[in-house]
């Protein structure tokens, strides 16, 4: 049930080169899965080619041409806030990504809108939208709603909703708006490419990956040797890279590399969502973790909930 004051859905898209990111179609799908979500408008920050709209299953595409992305998150927030104030959507959706996390909560706070992030479920309840999100690394889920709120801003987790199919008839309308975005901004200086001072783990056929379960850096040598013995490339989850165990080029995850090896062996990795995003398409995933509820097991093909060091002892014995 939507408020009479607001209607429709605004989807804030992200650009990837000259197209919109894959998440855009997922967000459209999420919008279409709840009632009274149309019309669906897709907002693009900055100007662009009309062709960017090709195949997008929405009713309208809006370029906010005055939103200079080099001016950072404050300008993105001001741009989205301006369009919300103008068009009064009931639902505002974006991807829970570095970009979305930069502006969405600011927009919701500034305009006193409903807000939730990293949303993994969305449905209609008797009094409005109901969302689901995870707590405590996924061990628990929360159900939340937004009573007496006319507009809610939601960041949706990527890869949960299937992308809406391409629609060559849409969008029917392309608009350009140029609100005055005089805000205290930031200044883009430069882009620094990812570190490539070590092996390219995306080319590995077999990856042996270790995480926090390998508590002691003194053990690193054992895993280096074991990886060699197995003919595998050694990789790491983020916490070990943060702690300086290896070059960032060996990090698997959203802020590191996305890998699709034939075999991925995860030892002592709990499976934070950002890690899973970097390896869940691997051919065969074996996970060893003493926590039977570790999220890594959601994507694993084979599991063992015993001590990884007992397994390593045996692997060393068998590969001597």
């Amino acid at each position, binding site marked *: 049930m939507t408020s009479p004051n607001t209607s429709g859905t605004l989807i804030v898209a992200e650009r990837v080169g000259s197209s919109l990111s894959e998440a855009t179609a997922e967000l459209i799908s999420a919008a279409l899965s709840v009632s009274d979500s149309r019309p669906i408008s897709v907002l693009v920050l900055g100007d662009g080619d009309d062709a960017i709209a090709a195949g997008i299953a929405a009713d309208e595409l809006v370029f906010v041409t005055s939103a200079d992305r080099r001016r950072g998150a404050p300008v993105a927030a001001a741009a989205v806030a301006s369009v919300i104030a103008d068009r009064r959507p009931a639902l505002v959706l974006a991807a829970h990504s570095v970009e979305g996390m930069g502006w969405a909560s*600011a927009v919701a706070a500034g305009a006193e809108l409903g807000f939730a992030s990293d949303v993994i479920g969305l449905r209609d309840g008797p009094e409005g939208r109901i969302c689901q999100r995870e707590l405590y690394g996924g061990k628990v889920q929360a159900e939340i709603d937004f009573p007496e709120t006319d507009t809610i801003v939601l960041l949706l987790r990527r890869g949960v909703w299937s992308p809406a199919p391409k629609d060559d008839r849409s969008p029917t309308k392309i608009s350009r708006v140029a609100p005055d975005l005089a805000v205290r901004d*930031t200044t883009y200086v430069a882009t620094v490419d990812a570190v490539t001072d070590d092996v390219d783990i995306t080319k590995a056929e077999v990856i042996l990956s270790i995480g926090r379960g390998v508590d002691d850096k003194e053990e690193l040598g054992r895993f280096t040797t074991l990886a060699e013995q197995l003919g595998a490339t050694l990789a790491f989850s983020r916490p070990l890279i943060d702690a300086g165990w290896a070059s960032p080029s060996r990090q698997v995850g959203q802020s590191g590399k996305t890998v699709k090896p034939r075999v991925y062996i995860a030892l002592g990795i709990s499976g934070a969502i950002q890690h899973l995003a970097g390896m869940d398409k691997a051919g065969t995933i074996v996970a060893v973790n003493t926590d039977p509820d570790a999220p890594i097991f959601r994507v694993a093909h084979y599991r063992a909930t015993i001590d990884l060091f007992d397994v390593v002892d045996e692997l060393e014995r068998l590969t001597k």
Partner: protein
Amino acid sequence: MAGDGITEELKLVVAVKQVGVVSDEFEIAADGMGVAPEDLDFTMNEWDAYALEAALSLGEEQQAEVIAVTVGSENTEPVLRRALAMGATRAVRLDTNPEDALSAARAIAGFVRTESPDLVLCGVQSADAANGATGPAVAELCGLPWVAVVRSVDPITTPASLRVTRELDAGVREVVDVELPALLTIQSGINEPRYATLRAIKNADREPIEVVACDSRPASHLRRVFVPAPQGENAESLGDDPAVVAERIIEIVRGTEVAS
């Protein structure tokens, strides 16, 4: 005077959260609104420890006041004691129970507006709720520019602006300049948070904690929490014998495994 770009002493505010850690076996509380309190341990949010360390490091390069602030009831004071033990010069508890990230942000913003710091530092997200939302909301409510997911902070060489590096996906980074006063959300791995000495921990127990009343209003309403259906059921168990597990792994690596 702090906050006007001409600072003799830097004023830094660091928002710290006491997060819950769920024990291996836990239950949902009877009211269905959280994990049973006896099944929770508490600790300083890891990202906030990085943020605090970043503030303390900036404070070593020049005179600085480092104010640790948390939002919560009295049982959240241990996180402030830890901040004091690490070297924060003031500790403030905003006396309300925040229902969500924006509720906490409103409380923090109210405090920041009264203090006019040069820089506000928050962790990117909390380990328990992982909203990743508090920082930018505080910045917006205070009219401050912000940079999120900061991976490094250059020393402050001019009173007016700061150069930081932020993290994008896939290891790509962006260098950004931001005018002070500003807010940064700090990403993990930026530094190595210092240990507090035993003496510092003891001294921290005796330092005052300012308790301040505040406004907060949530942007969402919790209906219930629950344990989701187990999702690891598709994985085939390799059993409990390490020798067998190791043999199966080797078969899989060699490509000689037989799917059952």
